[in-house]
């Protein structure tokens, strides 16, 4: 009997402490379903004319100004649309996946969601096709190449809200002092790095981020500029192609030769950005926001160039795109019209340009492009870059596994494993 009591007590103690211990994890800190579910009428009941239709939305927090921007948008939208109550929850990137999944699991999916991924929600049949909730006028504004990134089974399931592209940032003063030009090929890159190292051993010639945060971008920079990549033209996974193996070996070789920051597996892009702005890193690949960061923190003499390629192979920038999607919550005509009104208002030229410029992103619509280029002449070059950028195959259901898989490959090879073997294993895991 005593043993039984002891076991029960142990069970209770472990349960209690496990629960307390778990409070330390960020996941537990995630705000839970902060906003009330839209008290929309039942799907088959038309909204009464004097009743407001509520549209709920979860939006990703891109920076310090995001929440305020959405508050302003809600106010303006509701003033112009008396019959619609717009409720936007702005959630940090750390918590947004947990919050969205919790809401879905509880049957409280938002009407609109602004996030980066969509394939998992589409695979579960939770989304509506874009043509159901985006007006023709708004739909015509998007670049076709952007819409293509959200196609599954020939249907567009989400529309882009913004984009960013990557380019080579270099410290012009350091390159000049080292007596070298901006590298355009991998061979030149290595030579330039060696020259910078010889000029000042305290400077890291090349910034590399292989962390869990964004190691997949590192893989893409070198694979795409060596004729490789994640998928072939038919969309089949080609993770263990010879070009990818060569790309992994090249970047790991730069790290092992001491031409990069010392710890690429723990130093994120943000760490590199700080080191670049302070002159500790001479060159790095990064998004357009780095320009603003450098101007605000030190004002180094920097320049921007295309990513180096292997020999004369075709180059490509890495594009990153976030999306807006609509959950299938069984809408009445009035509710669907309200959702469309919100989307139309968001992509209206003036607020949309304001939204994109707010956090220094790139627009995903043609009219937004023109307005942004007028407001910020420095953005014009970036708009060209994003036009030729390649995107991650985020529409494929295996993408989350591939993303972590290539990061793991980079880290394993850095620890001494063979790139070909690691990529073969990953290809077998993903494609079977």
């Amino acid at each position: 009997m005593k043993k039984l009591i002891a076991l029960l007590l142990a069970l209770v103690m472990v349960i209690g402490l496990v629960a307390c211990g778990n409070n330390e994890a960020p996941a537990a800190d995630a705000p839970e379903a902060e906003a009330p579910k839209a008290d929309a009428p039942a799907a088959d009941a038309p909204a009464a004319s004097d009743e407001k239709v509520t549209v709920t939305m979860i939006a990703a927090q891109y920076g310090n100004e995001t929440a305020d921007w959405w508050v302003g948008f809600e106010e303006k939208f509701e003033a112009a649309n008396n019959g619609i109550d717009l409720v936007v929850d702005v959630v940090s990137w750390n918590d947004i996946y947990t919050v969205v999944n919790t809401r879905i699991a509880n049957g409280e999916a938002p009407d609109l969601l602004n996030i980066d991924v969509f394939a998992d929600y589409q695979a579960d049949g939770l989304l509506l096709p874009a043509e159901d909730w985006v007006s023709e006028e708004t739909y015509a504004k998007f670049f076709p190449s952007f819409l293509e990134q959200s196609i599954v089974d020939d249907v567009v399931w989400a529309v882009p809200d913004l984009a960013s592209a990557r380019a080579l940032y270099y410290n012009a003063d350091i390159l000049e002092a080292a007596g070298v030009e901006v590298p355009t090929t991998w061979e030149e890159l290595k030579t330039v790095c060696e020259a910078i190292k010889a000029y000042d051993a305290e400077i890291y010639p090349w910034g590399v981020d292989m962390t869990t945060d964004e190691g997949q971008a590192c893989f893409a920079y070198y694979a795409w500029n060596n004729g490789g990549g994640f998928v072939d033209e038919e969309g089949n996974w080609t993770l263990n192609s010879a070009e990818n193996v060569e790309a992994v070996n090249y970047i790991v070789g730069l790290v092992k030769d001491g031409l990069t920051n010392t710890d690429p597996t723990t130093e994120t892009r943000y760490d590199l950005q700080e080191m670049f702005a302070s002159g500790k890193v001479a060159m790095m690949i990064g998004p357009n926001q780095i320009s603003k960061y450098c101007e605000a923190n030190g004002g180094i003499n920097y320049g921007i160039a295309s990513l180096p390629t292997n020999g004369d192979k075709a180059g490509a920038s890495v594009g990153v795109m976030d999306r807006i999607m609509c959950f299938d919550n069984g809408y009445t005509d009035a509710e669907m019209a309200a959702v469309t009104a919100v989307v139309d208002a968001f992509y209206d030229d003036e607020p949309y340009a304001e939204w994109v410029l707010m956090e220094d992103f790139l627009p995903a619509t043609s009219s937004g492009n023109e307005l942004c280029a007028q407001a910020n002449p420095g953005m014009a070059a970036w708009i060209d870059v994003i036009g030729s950028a390649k995107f991650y195959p985020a529409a494929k259901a295996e993408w989350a596994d591939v993303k972590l898989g290539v990061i793991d490959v980079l880290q394993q090879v850095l620890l001494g494993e063979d790139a070909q073997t690691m990529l073969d294993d990953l290809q077998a895991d993903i494609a079977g």
Partner: protein
Amino acid sequence: MNTSKPYTLVRKAEPYLWILPSIILMSIFIIIPIGFVFRMAFSEVTKAGLVKGFAGIENFAKVLKSAKFGLVLKNTIVWTIMVVVLSTVLGFILALLLNNEFKGRKIARAIVVFPWATTLVIQASVWKFIIDIDYGALNTLLKTLGIISSNVNWTPTPEAYFGWEIACGIFVTIPFVCFTALSGLQSIDSSYYEAATVDGAGYFQQLFNITLPLVKPSLTVATVLNIIYVFNSFPIVWTITKGDPASRTDTLVTYLYKLAFYNGKQGEAAAVSVIGFLILLVCASVYMVSTLKKGED
């Protein structure tokens, strides 16, 4: 004396009524959520978080087949044993020092509490800053003192990173052990030491034959609680390395976090959580059984 049947029933039920609110609270906030974790561990869960049906032991089989799991489990055991054992030894030694009468003892005790009173994420961030090769306080200090001439890479390997994480874990755990041991030390009657001194016992004889046996119950409680807390600790490893590179510094908790929120494999993450729960249950059971057995003796 009122010995009527209803009165006796009320008296018998009274203790249960008193603990009823706690049981209700525990059920709502602890037992039911843990029940959900068990349910997920045996369910097919989509990446969007929808439970699609019963999956049997499929999630457990996938986890156990994964090449990473063995490495992560080994890391977790090393992490737990190193942090718990070393923080217990060091915390006990510190408690012995703080139990002596000396000037400024109160201030010293207050200082010892600091690491415990600070959020773990802040602690881990500070440690990460200290060992940073470029801007770290350790390199700056050593260079200022003239001990080194150029920056030293304190984390050249994953093992070195893990070592620093363990050091951080020990640092933040010592105060808890220290104060638990200190409370035990203060309850020891000084007459035991006086008698031992009269009998000619030396410092170490007194330590091993009087102090340790009498402080043992306090240290045992601290150790069991620490095993559970340290085993489940997330912020230190996550803040310093996120388990990178290639899971070489992952523990079960950071591993399951990545499975759930980076890979979207919530069923497998729940299975890892259940495995951790069972390991802790065995540890706690051993302790509870042995404690109650001793009480019986």
